């Protein structure tokens, strides 16, 4: 199996946010998979912006 450190974040988020079984959890009823993917995009772009500003 993949050693965790070797796994690229983009590949990880690709699978964790848009893969895996989608169960109706108790606390995440309103967060659909599409929302999670959009959110990850914003987070990554925000981090790139933040990195460049420093």
């Amino acid at each position: 199996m993949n050693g965790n450190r070797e796994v690229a974040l983009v590949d990880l988020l690709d699978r964790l946010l848009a893969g895996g079984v989608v169960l109706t959890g108790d606390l995440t009823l309103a967060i659909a998979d599409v929302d999670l993917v959009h959110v990850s995009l914003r987070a990554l772009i925000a981090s790139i912006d933040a990195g460049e500003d420093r």
Partner: protein
Amino acid sequence: MNEPFGRASYAYAVARSFDPAQLAGVRGVDGAEVRLVRYRDLVAVVSPVPLTEFDEAALRTKLEWLPWLEATARAHHAVVDAVATSSVTLPLRLATVYRGDERVTEVLRQGYRRFRAALDRLAGRVELGVKVYTDPQAMAPAAGPSASSPGRDYLRRRRAQHRAHDDAWQRAAASAERVDATLAGLAVDSRRRPPQRQQLSGVRGENVLNAAYLVDAGRTDEFAAVARCLDAEAPGTRIELTGPWAPYSFAPPDDEEPA
């Protein structure tokens, strides 16, 4: 088993039952210890998280903050990976949280048949990821003869760049179709994932194909060797292999979703 007030159960995966000793020392989100919730011959792998930190409002904020998202994703993946080395595993999507282990048991009970069927299909198989990229070198046009007029020169250069870009893209796309057809022949199942944005992955070249293949565990070496051959054979494209992964991309389709 009731959770103390305020604690919820973060669920990582559903798997065929196995010895919890295999997860000794495995830490999940926020470094919490991971445990198993049993129902018949299935287990759900969970760890405790504070209820208030995982309601919708809290989650939306955290998901947009990359340090949290990355730490949580890596912790989640580490647990799934550890489980997958011990048993057939159905990874769950990030942030699947229940109010307590009793609820988790209930979810296992309600989805028992479908979980079992999904796990049976995945037994002895792993996911391999294949990404095909255009070669940025191939997209740079050769320098043409220089005319004495800079404006016309510029237009000529730009036209050559457009053509080179389009040609490279088409070559990579055709190559990607061949790669997919060949590798699918070595796999039990395959899925196309959305291409990865360069802005996110930071790699050179454009992602033309992002595919996942469900492969018998005994054939992964063969699969990797064929992928390497294809990479060598296809100038103007680059092929990257990732994995083996737990079968994130081969979760049951929506209409068969458990619970």
